[in-house]
């Protein structure tokens, strides 16, 4: 088969990672036909779950040597698949997986690449791409030259695709020999499904007023889950045992710059503000109307967080 766009799908060896499907929406927006690529070992179920997304085909490279994602062999496999179907665009959703593999594949294909594309606009047959630069404090509009291109898109900028199209075929790919210098040793996966604090688009921060670990996990965690975000904490909260220290945000903890930061019961000491000052939107919920954080918050809500946060979680889960 042939297709103009090849989309690399990410999975965790058990099932597809939902955000990686958002690339399908980007491909649809671009208007060309596309194929999905799955790499791994024991991929039948995963491949089957992808047939109704409107792809021309689901390509599968299933081999023990691909059991773990190592860039040297994965990029080579991607390049082979790309060339096989005569594609001109290589696409994936931004993640540490795609960022590791796609640039290497781009070099193999002699193609330019853009990461974290937010928007693709076509005018007069030419495409322009919008992406964040300077830690998201600026947006750049970019043009590419040449026949080929490699793109990763930001999951939050594209919606999840509908999965209601008539099934497409699944094709097994012959990948031949692949580089095997690197060796996979082990992985240590966080049991949480939440994104990494320093890279999450949405972060919920909790302060000392959350009283105890159970309340912290319920309110901060609950809100984080409702928004698909990560959890952070002030130093005061970490000190009192409400959160582990790798959640600490601030001058001597992590410095983050999410799109949305919601501060629960945080007064806004300068050391904490140093860690969040580059967030795009800051929401502050605090009982004290004079809390310094209100000077920095885009939206401020004065009140008791123990009542407000459950309301907020409920409202967000409905919408």
């Amino acid at each position: 088969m042939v297709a103009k766009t090849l989309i690399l799908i990410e999975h965790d060896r058990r099932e597809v990672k939902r955000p990686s499907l958002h690339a399908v929406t980007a491909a649809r927006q671009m208007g060309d036909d596309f194929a999905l690529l799955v790499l791994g070992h024991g991929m039948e179920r995963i491949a089957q779950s992808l047939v109704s997304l409107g792809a021309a085909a689901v390509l599968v490279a299933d081999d023990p040597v691909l059991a773990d994602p190592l860039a040297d062999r994965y990029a080579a496999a991607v390049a082979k698949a790309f060339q096989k179907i005569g594609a001109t665009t290589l696409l994936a959703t931004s993640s540490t997986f795609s960022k590791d593999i796609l640039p290497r594949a781009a070099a193999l294909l002699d193609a330019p690449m853009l990461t974290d594309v937010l928007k693709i606009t076509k005018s007069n047959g030419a495409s322009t791409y919008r992406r964040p630069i300077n830690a998201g404090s600026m947006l750049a509009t970019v043009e590419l030259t040449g026949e080929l291109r490699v793109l990763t898109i930001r999951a939050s900028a594209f919606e999840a695709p509908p999965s209601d199209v008539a099934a497409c075929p699944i094709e097994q790919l012959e990948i031949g020999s692949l580089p095997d210098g690197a060796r996979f040793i082990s992985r240590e996966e966080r049991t949480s499904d939440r994104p990494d604090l320093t890279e999450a688009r949405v972060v919920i921060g909790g302060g000392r007023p959350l009283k105890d670990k159970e309340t912290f996990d319920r309110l901060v965690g609950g809100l984080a889950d409702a928004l698909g975000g990560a959890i952070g904490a002030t130093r005061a909260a970490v000190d009192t045992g409400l959160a582990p220290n790798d959640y600490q945000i601030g001058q001597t903890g992590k410095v983050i710059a999410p799109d949305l930061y919601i501060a629960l019961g945080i007064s806004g000491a300068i050391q904490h503000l140093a860690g969040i000052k580059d967030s795009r939107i800051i929401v502050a919920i605090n009982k004290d109307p004079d809390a310094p954080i209100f000077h920095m918050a885009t939206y401020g809500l004065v009140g008791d967080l123990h009542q407000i946060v459950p309301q907020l979680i409920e409202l967000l889960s409905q919408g």
Partner: protein
Amino acid sequence: MKILVTFKSVPDPYESAAPGGSPATAKSVINPFDEIAIEEALRIRERGEATEIVGLTIGPAAVEEQVRAAIAMGLDRAIRIDDSRALDPYAIARILRAVVAKEAPEVVLMGKQAVDDDSNQVGQMLAGLLGWPQATFISKIEFLQNQTRARCTRETDAGLEIIEIPFPAIVTTDLRLNEPRYVSLPGLMKARKKPIEVQSCDDLGLKVEPRTKVVATERPPKRSAGVRVETVEELVAKLKEEARVI
């Protein structure tokens, strides 16, 4: 054992992003991720596992201050490829490949991304061009078997991965790898005595053109000076409609 560390001069990220600042007016500094790479290379040498640490950057004469700062941290010498164009990651990777061919290091270390462009591509592209193994976003690195391979811990969305790569290899560094040492004025003074080699693409026998062009940049919608909301419903509505962040 020679390590080549590449670094980029970027506008200070805090100053650029601050409300009163911009990338155009901010002071230039060494890309923070590259500083971490330099620091790691120095520690490897301090452990006796490397003998020469060479720095490499691409940029016009104006980046000399950052080159001095990098040398001041402890590099043995540095190379600057003189080029004042707005290059893209693929062009950069091709230039680096030419230098790597000349210098023949066993390991190339660099920050995972530059904080002005945020592409996170150069290291991986260079590895693809060279056909070398790569370890990206590392938070820990250990040299093994007489400095012929390395065990690396990588930071991924899901947690951590540990892989091993034989040399020669490309390694890109993530934030938690180390905390770079501070360099004060006397260190910078000492750095003046160390050599900086300046070359051009012509000297390398290269002709590279970027294939990416930035046609416009703009600020995202500005944060209005703090609004108080009265109810939860109002908050959610504003986040959805006004800020469009959820």
